[in-house]
């Protein structure tokens, strides 16, 4: 664990109960990964629901998925991938000690996240307009197969939960932008940005699966 010569080096961001910055950084990272694990299982329930109902009503799922616009979904996928790249580069930039580069890249990530949400907004409002709503509010009649509302229940639950995560991510990125501009970070200490990055990549990961599940194969 701790190496002895770290005792003398005690920067102000090092908490008292850690014996070295290394120990603190590793702890944060492990904590973050465990948090991501809980996120995976949180989404997991919905993945399970998707799998069960997809197996029960395969025709419905195939018919219903055609009502989603894959060009919009694909655009959103590309937008999120781009935001992941900028996020990863923001961390790299801070590793190199460039505050300006980090700020630009964080702002780009934020902007791409906003684009994602705007596209999602148009998709949602179109669905609302058609009456392709979850569960008992479903009124659309153009989809053949049993229980098409279940497809939309799962669709709205999963993309909605994902959307909430995107919004939460934007809030955290905003906080990181603020802290970066206040010179809280340096090439020695950038753990919070790194953690934000991990979270943001997970949001991207989830979407990488949601996209084919709903837009491509139903």
């Amino acid at each position, binding site marked *: 664990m701790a*190496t002895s*010569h770290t005792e003398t*080096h005690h920067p102000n961001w090092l908490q008292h109960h850690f014996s*070295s*910055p*290394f120990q*603190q950084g*590793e702890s944060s*990272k*492990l904590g973050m*990964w*465990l948090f*991501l*694990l809980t996120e*995976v*299982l949180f989404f*997991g*329930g919905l*993945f*399970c629901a998707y*799998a*069960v109902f997809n*197996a*029960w009503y395969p025709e419905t799922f195939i018919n219903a998925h055609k009502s989603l616009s*894959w060009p919009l979904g*694909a655009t959103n*996928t590309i937008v999120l*991938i*781009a935001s*992941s*790249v900028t996020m*990863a*580069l923001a961390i*790299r930039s801070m*590793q*190199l000690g460039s505050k300006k580069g980090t700020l630009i890249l964080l702002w780009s990530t934020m902007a791409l996240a906003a684009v994602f949400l705007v596209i999602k907004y148009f998709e949602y409002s179109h669905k609302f307009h058609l009456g392709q709503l979850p569960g*008992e509010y*479903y009124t659309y009649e153009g989809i053949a197969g*049993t*229980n098409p*509302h*279940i497809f939309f229940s799962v669709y709205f639950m999963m993309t909605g939960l994902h959307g909430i995560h995107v919004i939460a991510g934007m809030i955290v990125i905003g906080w990181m932008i603020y802290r970066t501009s206040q010179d809280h970070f340096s*090439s*020695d*200490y*950038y753990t919070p940005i*790194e953690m934000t*990055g*991990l979270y943001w*990549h*997970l949001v*991207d*990961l989830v979407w*990488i*699966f949601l*996209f*084919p*599940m709903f837009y*491509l*194969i139903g």
Partner: protein
Amino acid sequence: MSSNGQSHHHILPLSVYINVGLALLVLTVLTVVVAQMELGVFNTILAMVIAITKASLVALFFMHLKYDNKLYLIVFLAAIAFLGLFIILSMADTETRGDIYEFRGRPINEDAVIYNRPGVAGIDTLAGEVADTVTAATDTSAANQSESDTAGGQ
């Protein structure tokens, strides 16, 4: 390595991020193209294979799993493994209910009667929980409920 805890792993060259980003882009285009073809079950399999590839790229490079402590990789794989366990064991039930008696494998009414939920509808219940005062409103909703019961009853 210095005493600082962060730079113990080397900083990846810019090209890694750009290349991975481009690979993800190509894979996205590929999965869309493949989905337009009619390949039966292979549509699903291919889409999932591509998604898993993309996810692995993100996890290994963007999330640094390839370079970091292997413990994080274990944590991440554990999450996937237990999710898999959850889905597989749940579906071990939902997919085999009709094994002995076929009638047990499916609902009695395949098509749901969407607007015929037993009891009080959800929104009204919420309202009732927050403030139990609007009795008149709930009464009418109960009446509507019973009308739809008559309409949709078997």
